[in-house]
Each structure stands twice: as C-alpha cells, then as structure tokens.
C-alpha cells in the first residue's frame, strides 16, 4: 500500500510539472496573425512595400520579430510602437495625426467639400443662364432675351442683362450675317 502511495505521489508531482510547463508556453503565432500586423506596417528599406508581402530577407527578419513579440505576449499596439521607435513613423501605413501629418487627414476631405461647393456654384450659374435656342413663330417668353431678325434693337424683359456687352457683340454678329 505504501508503495502505491509513493508511486501515485511521484506521478502527481510529474503531472503538476508537465501541466505547469504547458500553461507557461505561448502557442506559436500563425502566419495570419503575423501578417495581420505586418500588413499595417511598411518595409523601412524598400519603400512603398507593405511588410506582409515584402519578399526581401530584411522583411523576413521583421516578420519573424513580430512573431517573437506576439509569442512574448506583446500587443499589436506594443509591436507597432516598437517599430515606430526603431524605424520612425514612416513605417506605419496610417501616419499618426501629429504635426504636418494632419494635412493627410484634413486636405482630402476639405478639397472634396470645396469641390462640392464649386460644383454647386457652377450648376447654379448654368441654371440661371439660358440654353441657346431659336424659336420661330412662337410668342416671346417674357424672361428670354429676344433678337429680331430685322436687326433692330433687342427687346428683353430682364433689365439687368440689357447692357451686357456680350449681347451687344452677338447682335452685331447676327446683323452682319443677315
């Protein structure tokens, strides 16, 4: 009986160590886990190449470094910060919104808004200007400028446009043609 107790005791101690070791080990991070972070970083040497697809030996080393840091329990933010500390903010696919980097976030939406505003102004201007047309034997619509064939002076209901130099030139051209 004593012998059985001894054997069970040794087995229990062995099992305790075995499970302890298993809990202490971190599982090896997969390629997908490594690439999820690497895709947010750029190769510091070969510019404009994301780290997850970069084929160089240096990039392979950096991906391995990410794997090691993940295995050590480092978070995504920790790893990105490590890369910024060592290689500069230029390795980030999304630059931090500090200093002149703000322009990256401000200029495109501002340019878009300015574009929309200009388009609005342009459409409003086009709407106010009338399409060129020639209407024969139709009653004159009050808001349209009219130019008689005979070449007499124009009759228009829009007093603001009467003195338009452009209209005067157009009339002159039409008079010459007739």
């Amino acid at each position: 009986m004593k012998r059985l107790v001894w054997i069970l005791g040794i087995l229990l101690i062995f099992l305790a160590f075995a499970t302890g070791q298993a809990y202490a080990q971190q599982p090896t991070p997969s390629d997908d886990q490594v690439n999820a972070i690497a895709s947010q970083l750029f190769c510091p040497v070969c510019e404009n190449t994301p780290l997850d697809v970069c084929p160089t030996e240096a990039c392979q080393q950096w991906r391995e470094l990410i794997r090691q840091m993940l295995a050590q329990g480092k978070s995504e933010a920790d790893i990105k910060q490590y890369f910024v500390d060592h290689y500069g903010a230029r390795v980030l696919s999304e630059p931090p919104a500090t200093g002149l980097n703000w322009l990256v976030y401000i200029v495109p939406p501002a340019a878009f808004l300015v574009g929309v505003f200009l388009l609005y102004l342009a459409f409003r201007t086009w709407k106010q200007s009338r399409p060129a047309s020639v209407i024969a034997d139709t009653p004159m619509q009050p808001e349209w400028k009219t130019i008689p064939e005979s070449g007499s002076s124009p009759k228009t209901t829009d007093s603001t446009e009467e003195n338009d130099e452009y209209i005067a030139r157009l009339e002159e051209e039409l008079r010459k043609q007739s």
Partner: protein
Amino acid sequence: MDQTRQTTSVPVRRPLPFRAQLLVWSALLFLLIILGLSVARSRNTILGVGSKVPEFSLTFMDGYNFGSAKAVKLSDLRGKVVLVNFWATWCTPCQSEAAALETAWRSSQPSGQVVFLGVDYVDTDTEARAYLAEFDISYPNGPDLQTRISQLFNRNLGVPETYLIDQQGILRSIQIVPFQSVGQIQPLIDPCSREINSWT
C-alpha cells in the same frame, strides 16, 4: 410688322463669387507654401564634402561604450577624426568590408586621434548582435533609431556608406561602396590624423 421673331437666349457668364475665389486661391497658396517648405527642408539636409556635419547622438548597443559612456555626441569628439560607417545585417556588401574596418580600427586605436562609429541602419537587434559577434567588431556601434542619423547625412542610396569627419566637424570624405581592404581606409584616416598632430 413682321410677327415672325427669332428668340435667342444668350448664356451669361458670371464670375465665381468673391468669397469662393478667395477660398480657392487661399487653399492653393497654402499648398504651395507647404510644398515650398518641404523642398527647402530637403535641400538643407543634403550634406556634401566640406559641409559642417550637424550634431547627432549615437546610443550604443549592449557591450559597447566609448570610454565609460553608453552614448556619444559628435560634439564630444571634437578634435578627433571620426569615421561613421552605416551598415546592416541584410546588406551583403557590408560583410565584405567588416573585417577591413575592424583591422583599420585596431591599428588606429593606439593614437587615440581616430574614432570609428558603426551605425546600424534599420535592422533587428538579434541579427545585429550576431553580426557584430561574427565579425568581432570592437569599435562602438549603435542603432540608427528612427533613421535620425542617416537622415542628417541624407543617406538614401543604400548601405554600406562611410563618412569621414575631421577634427573640426567638417565632412572630408564620402565612401558609397564597400572598402575592399585596409589599404583603402588607412590613407583616408592618416591625412586627417597628421593634420591634428601638426596643429597641436
């Protein structure tokens, strides 16, 4: 009176409102200023032979020091000839010159007038330590953190590159290909060393 009439509409060109014009021109001016500033900044960083090398600081890797210091500033080395070598573990040509640099360092060390600084350009710590151990590099080495030092030298061509700075902090020589032998390094260091000996 002829009742037949032609009715012609005339497009009226209206200029953009003043506020809109002001907005567009201000935005363009702002972008031009930013562009100009960045161009001026990049021009300022081009460092040629005869230029004064801006101040920089190098923090050494574990196991390296200068005297008892774990970091060094260029201004601390005034009065000495400084050889700054940029290298990386992923750079094969760097390996071909590593032994020659170490030999030149050991031969110039007794004079105390020449300092070699190894700057590890965008690398990983583990591989860098292995590289230094493999080539038995004993002169002070440190990482180029955030590529600050290489940006000062406007070093964008690749590694290895070696810069020789004289006792007054003036850039004397730029080597953009690996040294093939100690014989190529020694003549670069010697004239500068002789110069300081004649001054003192």
